[in-house]
């Protein structure tokens, strides 16, 4: 009989309410073809160590709750096959730039706060009959294409974990929030620019993005947040042409 292939998984264990320092724990399990990292973690939880804390839901890259650092790169555990990770030992850590709740589970509250602060919903003005649902929002297919890409974001936090600016600047909204802001600003049914402007255009706003591109590199859904941020920045820069209009927008925003 052929010798069974093994895979070693090293997991960062940390319980902030009980321990002061994080430590690593190694597990050895059989290499099963087709297993994802999440399957392996569930295998560990079932057979080797019941105390391991993980968070997951859909197992198919839709819910965005199993993001973690896999060998130093933020990835979704359910979306990464064992065979994708070519090393014999796989190191799993919770996402950086997030607080740790326990082991591989990180706290998304601050991340969602940034998302909420940029008002990720349609803001309408001056057309009461639409607000009262008497008429539908009209949008051409070409207008849809302008933002559709950014609307498939699952808020998994991988981009925020990879961003070098977010790693030191907690007030920076992060690639996710900024690209979502672009998703609504680029939407022709929305006129909430000035309400968002104050949060986008401040010393910790969009200008702190330096296009390091790591967010787009790690995004599991092809959202390309870096593109969204650059397009939003282009929009802000091109705003100076109709000077009066911008002055009006700024007057109302500040």
């Amino acid at each position, binding site marked *: 009989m052929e010798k069974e292939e093994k895979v070693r998984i090293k997991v960062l264990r940390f319980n902030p309410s009980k321990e002061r320092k994080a430590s690593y724990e190694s597990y050895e399990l059989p290499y099963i073809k087709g297993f994802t990292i999440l399957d392996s973690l569930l295998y560990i939880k079932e057979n080797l160590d019941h105390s391991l804390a993980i968070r997951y839901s859909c197992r198919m890259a839709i819910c965005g709750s199993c993001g973690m650092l896999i060998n130093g790169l933020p990835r979704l555990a359910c979306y990464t096959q064992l065979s994708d990770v070519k090393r014999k030992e796989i190191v799993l850590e919770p996402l950086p730039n*997030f607080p740790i709740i326990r082991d591989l589970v990180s706290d998304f509250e601050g991340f969602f706060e940034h998302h909420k602060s940029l008002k990720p919903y349609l803001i309408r003005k001056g057309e009461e009959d639409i607000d009262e649902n008497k008429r539908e929002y009209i949008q051409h297919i070409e207008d849809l294409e302008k933002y559709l890409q950014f609307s498939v974001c699952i808020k998994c936090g991988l981009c925020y974990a990879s961003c070098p600016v977010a790693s030191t600047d907690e007030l920076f909204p992060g690639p996710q929030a900024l690209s979502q802001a672009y998703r609504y600003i680029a939407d022709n049914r929305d006129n909430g620019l000035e309400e968002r402007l104050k949060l986008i255009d401040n010393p910790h706003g969009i200008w702190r993005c*330096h296009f390091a591109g790591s967010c787009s590199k790690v995004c599991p859904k092809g959202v390309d947040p870096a593109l969204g941020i650059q397009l939003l920045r282009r929009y802000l820069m091109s705003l100076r042409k109709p000077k009066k209009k911008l002055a009006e927008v700024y007057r109302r925003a500040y």
Partner: protein
Amino acid sequence: MSRKRHKTGIKAWLKPYGYSLERWSYFFQRVSGVVLLLYFIGHVIETGTITGGFEVWLNTLNFTQNPFGHAILLIVILSGTFHAINGIRLYLTHQGYLLGKPERPEYPYYPKSFSRAQRVCFWLSVSIALVFFLYGFNILFGE
């Protein structure tokens, strides 16, 4: 309950590998910028000594015009050219040029912002910096 962030901190600034080419561009742009600013301050002080007269200026020249000073100058040429050309590229990309239009993501996702045009511009900045470096090397050490 507020929890403490598990921060990568400044380590993330200093770790350009593992991600994409743009992360390297970000890293070098920052490092070369700091190098250039330090050189600029030094250069303003250096040229300021000319007001002291002929003797003082000769002293300054003795202090700066030697192989060590020339080596520093070569680093400045390298980072200056890179910072300039890559700066133009960043200006264009920050304006949304060279990046392509957003479209529906299709499965083997490849970010639109990692377009060929802006990557070519990055390598152009590296190669022009090297050309200027060699040119400077020829002038400073060639004779």
